C-alpha cells in the first residue's frame, strides 16, 4: 500500500498544537471499535485528542455507478447492501423515490406492511447500535441481550421474505409478498415481549455509574453545529432539534399514526443513548397501531413490467434509523436511471467526528464513534 504522508501537517495551525509531545496514532482500519473498516488518524497530546482525520473508502463498491448500468428494478437489491443493518429502510427510500418519479403510489395495505417492517428494522438497527456501543465502552451484557431480542425481528423478516439481513422486502409500486399467516400475531407478540426487555437494557445502563460517567458530557454537539454539519437523525434530535422526516414531511402513511419524537437537552453521548432508547418505544407504538389498522386490499400498484419513468429528476428522502436517507434520481426516459445519488446519513454524520472528539481522551473517541451509529457500508457505498 502507498503510505500516506500528508497527515503529518494535519492541523499544525491549531492553537492547542504542542509539537513536543505530539503523537500520531492510527486507529483502524481493522479495529473492532470502528464498526467496520474505518481508519481514524488521531493526533494526540498525551492522551488528549488534538485533531482527527477519517480515511474512508475501504468498502467503496461504486453503488451509484452500478445504478446507472442496471434497470430500476435490478438496482433495488443493491441498496440493501449499503446500510446492511437497516436494509429494509434503504429499500423503502429507493422504492418510494422511484414511485415518485413514476408517479404511482403504493396501495394502503402495502404502505402499512412497509411501515411495520421499517419500524421493526429501526428497532433492529438500534439494537445493533446499542449492543456494539455498550460493548465498546465496556459493558458486555447488553450485546447479548440486544442480539438475542433482535433475533425475533429477523425471524419475522425471514418468515416474510425469506431473508434475514439483506431483505429486498419491497418492490417499486408496493410489496411483492403478502403477509404470512400469523404475521400480525408475531408482530404483536414481539411488541409485548420487547418492552420489558427494553426496560432490562435500561436497568443495565441508564443509571449505571460507569455508563453515565463514560457518556455524559462526552462528544457534545450543539444544535447549530448539527445543522451546519448536516447531521440528522437521533444525533440531531439529541441536541434538542425536534425534527423527524416522518413528522416534518410524512411519507407512506406515517401521518395516520400517533407517536412522539424524543429529543435530548445536552447533545452528548448519554442523550443520544436516551433518544434512541425512546425511539425504540415509539417504534413499538407505531407497529401496534399499524398492525391494528392493517387494511385489506391489493399490495401492488399498477406499474408497467418494464419501468420507464418519464424524463425528470427527483429527490426523495426518508427518516432512516441513522438519519435522513435521500435518493436523487435523474431519469432520461429509458429503462435505466441516468444518475442515482444516495444521500447517506452515516457519511454526513461521520464528518462531525472531528468536532466532537477534539479535547477528549482516546477512550472517548471509541464512545463517540459508537454514538454516531455509522455503518461503513453506507459511508463508502
Amino acid at each position, binding site marked *: 500500500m502507498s503510505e500516506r504522508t500528508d497527515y503529518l501537517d494535519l492541523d499544525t495551525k491549531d492553537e492547542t498544537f504542542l509539537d513536543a509531545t505530539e503523537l500520531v496514532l492510527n486507529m483502524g482500519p481493522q479495529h473492532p471499535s470502528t464498526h467496520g473498516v474505518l481508519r481514524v488518524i488521531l493526533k494526540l497530546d498525551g492522551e488528549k485528542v488534538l485533531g482527527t482525520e477519517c480515511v*474512508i473508502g475501504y468498502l467503496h463498491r461504486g453503488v451509484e455507478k452500478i445504478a446507472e448500468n442496471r434497470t430500476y428494478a435490478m438496482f433495488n437489491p443493491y441498496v440493501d447492501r449499503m446500510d446492511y443493518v437497516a436494509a429494509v429502510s434503504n429499500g423503502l427510500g429507493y422504492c418510494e423515490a422511484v414511485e415518485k418519479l413514476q*408517479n404511482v403510489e403504493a396501495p394502503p395495505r402495502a404502505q402499512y406492511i412497509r411501515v411495520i417492517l421499517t419500524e421493526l428494522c429501526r428497532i433492529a438497527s438500534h439494537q445493533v447500535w446499542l449492543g456494539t456501543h455498550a460493548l465498546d465502552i465496556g459493558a458486555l451484557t447488553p450485546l447479548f441481550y440486544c442480539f438475542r431480542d433482535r433475533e425475533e425481528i429477523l425471524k419475522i423478516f425471514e418468515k416474510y421474505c425469506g431473508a434475514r439481513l439483506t431483505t429486498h422486502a419491497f418492490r417499486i409500486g408496493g410489496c411483492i409478498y403478502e403477509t404470512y399467516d400469523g404475521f400480525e400475531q408475531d408482530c404483536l407478540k414481539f411488541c409485548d415481549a420487547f418492552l420489558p426487555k427494553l426496560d432490562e437494557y435500561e436497568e443495565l445502563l441508564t443509571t449505571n455509574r460507569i455508563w453515565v460517567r463514560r457518556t455524559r458530557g462526552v462528544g457534545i454537539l450543539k444544535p447549530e453545529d448539527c445543522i451546519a454539519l448536516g447531521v440528522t437523525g437521533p444525533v440531531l434530535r439529541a441536541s434538542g432539534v425536534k425534527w423527524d422526516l416522518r413528522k416534518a414531511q410524512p411519507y407512506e402513511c406515517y401521518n395516520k399514526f400517533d407517536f412522539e419524537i424524543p429529543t435530548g437537552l445536552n447533545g452528548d453521548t448519554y442523550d443520544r443513548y436516551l433518544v434512541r432508547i425512546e425511539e425504540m418505544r415509539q417504534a413499538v407504538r407505531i407497529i401496534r397501531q399499524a398492525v391494528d389498522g392493517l387494511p385489506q386490499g391489493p399490495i401492488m400498484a399498477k406499474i408497467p413490467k*418494464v419501468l420507464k*419513468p418519464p*424524463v425528470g*429528476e*427527483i429527490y426523495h428522502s426518508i427518516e432512516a434509523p441513522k438519519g435522513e436517507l*435521500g435518493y436523487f434520481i435523474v431519469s432520461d426516459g429509458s429503462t435505466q436511471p441516468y444518475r442515482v445519488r444516495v444521500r447517506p446519513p452515516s457519511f454526513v454524520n461521520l464528518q462531525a467526528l472531528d468536532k466532537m472528539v477534539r479535547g477528549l481522551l482516546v477512550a472517548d473517541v471509541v464512545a463517540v464513534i459508537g454514538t454516531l451509529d455509522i455503518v461503513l457500508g453506507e459511508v463508502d*457505498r
Partner: protein
Amino acid sequence: MAVPEETKDPNPVLPESSAPASPAAKPADALATADKPIASAAPAAAAKPATPEAAPTVAKAAAPAAAKPAAPAAKPAPKPEGPKPEPWDSELVRSLKSQYGSGIREASTYVGQKYLVVDSSIVYEILLRMRDDELFDYCVDITAVHYPKREAQFDIVYILYSFHHNQRVRIKTQIKDGATLRSVVGIWETANWLEREIYDMFGIGFSGHPDLKRILLPDGWKGYPLRKDYPILQQDTEWVKANLGIESGQ
C-alpha cells in the same frame, strides 16, 4: 486484463432487457416485410463493437428501436406523457429575478419539488443569500450529474432545506469540464466531504476548499468513475498492479 475487451459490453443489462421484446417482434415483422427484421437487427449489431464513449447513447437508441415492433401488440394506446416542469412563481423568485436578471435561467417545480437553475458565476451569492435571508440553513446534499454531449458538461445540484419553512429547494448550475466552482464550505461545513466526493467522482474542482483530495478512492487513482465516459468495468490497472499485487481487480 485488457480494458478494451471488457468494455465491449459495458451494459450487460441492456441486451437482456430488450431480449423479451425481440421474440415477440419477430413474428410480427415476418408478417409485414422481410426488410424490417434486418433493419431492426442492424442497430443491435452496430452497438456491439461501439467505442466505450458511444456505448451508453447507442444502447439507449437501440432499446426503443427493439421495443417498437412489439409495442402495437402489447399496448394499443400511446403512453401518457409524464408530468412536465411548471413555472415556479413566488416572492423569492421575483426578487431574485429582479436582482440577477438572466442569471436566473429557470425557476420551476417538478412534481411539487422546486428548483432554480442559475448561472455558475452567481451561484455562490445565491446560496449565501438562501442561507442568510431565506433561512435555508441545512444543506442536505451536493451532487453532480454528467451530460457529456452538452457544452457545459456538468450539472451541480445543491439540495437545501429550511427548518423554518419546512421546505426543500434545489439550486442547479452548469459548468464546463475543467472549470472550478467556488467552494461553499464557508457557508455550510457539511459541504467539505460532499465537495470532496464530487471531486473524487467527477473531477470537478472547488476553489477555496480547505482540503480538496480524493475521499472514497485511493489517493493515486487515475480517472473519475462517475463520468459517463468511464465504463463500469474500467479500473486503474496500474494502481491495482502496484498496490494490490494482482493483475486485475475483476
